């Protein structure tokens, strides 16, 4: 119990900010940028303070309206949740700089509406990181989903159709989750996660419990686009306005993976998943391996940068799900570290894609030719993001892969290890294909001694898009070098008990 409200303000700031943006944005569009950035800047700083506090004092429990749990709504901020809070707010803040610029061009005159939803989505994500209540989790999940539907539908062309498919799939996922929670409620009479966990502890294993668990898991897998439930994601993310995808792509799937960890370890227990259902555990790791391989292979078939990235996201989801289900602390550490790293990598790459789209207007592979000359800084940052995806040290991506593979070796899951290596190799092919296109100008004709190179003008993206991109790229290297302290200082604490 605490009386400090700081963590609540992290949730409330974007919520209030959303409606303030809507109200004041009507009066003048000039209000939008300072309000959004101010709110998110505040949230980021507050999240940092909260994380430090949680690491020092341990898990914080907060009751809304002073109704004591399990009757009232409880917010639980454990180290993992606090880490997610910081990740969400920091990534959102970074992405916002770029969004502000690209939305100004893509949706002129409707910035205030866009950023209302944008901030609501962030508030929803923050809530997901905070909540300690299974039903609230459903509501917040739907808040994030509904705003995402809206944001995606704001894109051009086929975006509304992609959004509609996402609505159908996303709602099925949410309904499954709701149904699972219904079973849990029938069994325990409670909705508070800690309370349910307590009651389940003394409960016999029944078919109903397994049903509940299965429904919740499948529901979340749909939401996180775990192969083969991923079909909605590539269209939805690649057709969304770039201002929306720079924020949605890094955060949505990662937060859902976090939710899976929450459900698995705060409601159910490692003993339940990994010992009582060891066969299922092994099966899911194999499915994760399959997910990685298939999604990587599908990514190879894409001819558009953003679509390719979306398939990589699907593969990365396989990494994380597999890591969690390896059922050892290395795999878990890897999965959590990969949540952080993958959010940053995806942010970096999508920011680069947004910057490229801003200048070239298209992300087809053909339009990427000669980009190293036209946009050297953007491409340098893109290259760092690509290296991180491939897993080249010392970028961040290498270290989470390190833990994941180590977990796979420890668990004797060689299929998963092979899948991770395969995916690294495929990523190398994917990104070097792009680097090659961007590095060679026209490709076919030899022009080794052509002095006309200097004629290509440098046309970098505007500073508002470039600065966050460079920041994200530097963050990848910084997190890579700092992954030792990060793991020992934060993630080891965040690994749920039972390992």
């Amino acid at each position, binding site marked *: 119990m605490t009386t400090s409200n700081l963590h609540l303000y992290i949730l*409330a700031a974007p919520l209030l900010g959303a*409606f303030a943006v809507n*109200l004041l944005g*009507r009066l003048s569009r000039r209000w939008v940028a300072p309000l959004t950035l101010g709110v998110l800047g505040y949230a980021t700083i507050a999240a940092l303070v909260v994380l430090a506090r949680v690491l020092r004092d341990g898990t914080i429990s907060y*009751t*809304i*309206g*002073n109704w004591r749990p399990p009757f009232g709504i409880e917010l639980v901020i454990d180290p993992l949740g606090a880490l997610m809070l910081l990740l969400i707010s920091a990534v959102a803040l970074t992405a916002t700089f770029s969004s502000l610029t690209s939305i100004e061009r893509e949706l002129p*005159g409707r910035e205030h509406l866009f950023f209302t939803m944008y901030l609501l989505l962030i508030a929803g994500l923050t809530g997901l990181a905070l909540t300690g209540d299974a039903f609230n989790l459903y509501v917040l999940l739907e808040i994030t989903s509904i705003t995402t539907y809206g944001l995606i539908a704001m894109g051009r062309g086929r975006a509304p159709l992609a959004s509609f498919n996402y609505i159908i799939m996303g709602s099925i996922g949410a309904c499954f989750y709701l149904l699972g929670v219904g079973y849990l409620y029938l069994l325990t009479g409670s909705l508070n996660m800690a309370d349910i966990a307590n009651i389940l502890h003394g409960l016999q294993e029944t078919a109903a419990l397994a049903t509940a668990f299965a429904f919740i898991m499948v529901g979340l897998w749909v939401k996180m686009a775990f192969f083969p439930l991923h079909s909605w994601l590539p269209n939805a993310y690649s057709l969304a306005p770039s201002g929306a995808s720079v924020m949605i792509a890094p955060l949505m799937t990662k937060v859902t993976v976090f939710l899976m960890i929450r459900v698995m370890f705060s409601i159910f227990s490692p003993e339940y998943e990994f010992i009582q259902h060891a066969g299922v555990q092994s099966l899911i790791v194999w499915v994760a391996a399959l997910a990685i391989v298939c999604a990587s292979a599908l990514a190879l078939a894409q001819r558009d940068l953003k679509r390719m990235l979306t398939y990589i996201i699907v593969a990365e989801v396989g990494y994380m799900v597999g890591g969690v289900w390896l059922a050892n602390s290395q795999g878990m550490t890897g999965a959590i570290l990969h949540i952080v790293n993958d959010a940053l990598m995806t942010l970096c790459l999508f920011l680069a894609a947004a910057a490229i789209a801003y200048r070239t207007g298209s992300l087809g592979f053909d339009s990427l030719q000669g980009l190293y000359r036209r946009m050297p800084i953007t491409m340098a940052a893109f290259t760092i993001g690509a290296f991180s995806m491939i897993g080249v040290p010392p970028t961040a991506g290498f270290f989470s892969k390190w833990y994941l593979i180590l977990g796979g070796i420890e668990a004797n899951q060689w299929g998963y290890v092979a899948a991770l290596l395969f995916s690294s190799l495929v990523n190398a092919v994917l990104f070097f294909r792009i680097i090659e296109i961007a590095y060679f100008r026209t490709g076919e004709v030899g022009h080794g001694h052509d002095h006309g190179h200097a004629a290509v003008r440098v046309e970098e993206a505007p500073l508002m898009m470039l600065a966050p991109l460079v920041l994200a790229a530097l963050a990848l290297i910084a997190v890579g070098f700092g992954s030792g302290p990060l793991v020992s200082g934060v993630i080891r604490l965040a690994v749920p008990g039972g390992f």
Partner: protein
Amino acid sequence: MKQVQDRAQTRAVGESLIIQTAVRLMVPFIQLFGLYVIVHGHYSPGGGFQGGVILGASFILTAVAFDLQTSLKRFTERTNAIMGNAGVLLYTGVGMLCALLGGLFLDYSALVRIIPMDPVEWRSLGIFLVEVGVGLAVMSIMASLYWDLSSRGELDEGL
């Protein structure tokens, strides 16, 4: 930005004197009832959501009985949006105020510091304020949902 009133098409569906007169008479009472439901929501069946729906329905009824234009003349899009936003801000604002005044979020007894009253009384008043906020928001959303759909999405607002 062109206001939607200028563009909303006149549709003479169901335009009949009897219905229009009846609706004209009914709407104030419906709205009054909506307010009643909102105001009594915190200790009897009802509340902001239900009341908000009733209020929203009254606008929809005008729109159905007359046409979109008439409805929008009475209650413009802009007012609607402002009211909706204000409603949410009221709701979250009250909760935040509790937190800012040193209590927990939505712990209305903390509001004692503004007007010294019995904390129990404040709990009652606090939830009332929240209900009002919810009611406003729901009303606005109901109305704008109908407008958006009935105008085939030609409103300036929306997606």
